[in-house]
């Protein structure tokens, strides 16, 4: 009786823990554990047939297909936000400089490339948690903990847009744009109260649409686009760095840059 009550009380707790996980694999394994506890509860509820079915289907079959669906062996997983010229969706294809570099890098390692578009703010998070191997999509390195940035492969600059004139610049809180590139709306950007900081690729895309010039400040210090890799994946980090260096040395990087960004 006590065992039954305790087990039943445990079920919602396990479910909540499993469903608040950030990593999908952890969530799936958590739900597998939940199914196991549920099967035991069915035994204690005098339903051995149900317990057996739940154990085989809920615990076995469902967990198996979900793990199979997300488990990537032999894949290089990229998380990225779209960035014009660097990493963009065209129909069901992806094109851009960064995509091209990573696709060649994956081929170099003998892996399949798998891309997942996520909001800009989630890129570092997903790389840090190990959900993805490499983060990309117009990433300008800052002081993110837990991730390594590769050496920059392309120069860029930061721009601050919006807010009252002259306000932007030193001392003003620089809110980096965090959402999907797809959601970037020039109108609301230029009329926003707080100034928003954009990198060159996104800034150009916003400028191209015919919105009146708001207040725009160009940040003086030079920056560069880079990829991010998990801190623990030193091997991947150095391999990617070396690969980009090689591309730069034989002039291929310049050719690609001209092809995608000219």
């Amino acid at each position, binding site marked *: 009786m006590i065992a039954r009550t305790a087990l039943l009380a445990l079920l919602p707790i396990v479910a909540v823990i499993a469903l608040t996980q950030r990593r999908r694999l952890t969530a799936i394994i958590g739900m597998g554990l939940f199914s196991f506890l549920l099967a035991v509860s069915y035994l204690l509820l005098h339903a051995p*047939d149900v317990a057996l079915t739940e154990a085989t289907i*809920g615990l076995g079959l469902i967990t198996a297909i979900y793990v199979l669906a997300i488990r990537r062996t032999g894949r290089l997983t990229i998380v990225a936000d779209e960035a014009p010229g660097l990493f963009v969706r065209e129909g069901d294809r992806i094109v851009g400089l960064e995509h091209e570099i990573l696709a060649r890098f994956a081929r170099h390692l003998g892996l399949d490339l798998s891309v997942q578009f996520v909001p800009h703010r989630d890129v570092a998070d997903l790389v840090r948690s190990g959900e993805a191997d490499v983060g990309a999509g117009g990433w300008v390195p800052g002081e993110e903990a837990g991730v390594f940035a590769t050496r920059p492969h392309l120069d860029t600059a930061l721009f601050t847009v919006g807010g009252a004139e002259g306000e932007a610049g030193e001392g003003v809180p620089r809110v980096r744009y965090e959402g999907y590139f797809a959601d970037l709306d020039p109108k609301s950007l230029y009329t926003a109260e707080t100034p928003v900081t954009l990198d060159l690729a996104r800034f150009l895309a916003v400028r191209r649409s015919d919105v009146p010039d708001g207040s725009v400040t160009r940040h003086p210090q030079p920056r560069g686009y880079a990829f991010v890799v998990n801190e623990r994946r030193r091997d991947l980090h150095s391999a990617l760095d070396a690969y980009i260096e090689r591309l730069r040395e034989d002039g291929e990087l310049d050719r690609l840059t001209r092809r995608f960004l000219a």
Partner: protein
Amino acid sequence: MAFSVGVVLFGIGLVAIAIRRDLVIKLLALGLTNAGSILCLVAVGDRPDARVPICAVCRDAIYADPLPQALVLSAIVINFAILALALVFVMRLVEQYHSTDSRHIEDLVQRDLDARGGP
């Protein structure tokens, strides 16, 4: 007790479907809602002092009701069928949009529809 836990699990699943944006997590939560309703159904046939309904002559004691248990066997299988098919569809969406974020996919679908003059 078991019925209440079932309803609570159902609720947790619903909240997770509504606020988690990742489709894989949403499907896991959908599995949880179904598991909750199944637990409710098992619970109504049971009592703490009942026995397992396997017996030749079942008269001398209280037995758990076999009907809800038999129904639940069907429900568990249906739950699996739903989760498997939904997962396959998510795989197709990922292939197309490279995203499992429901909001993002919704935006992209709307844009595709607008571009092509609707379905």
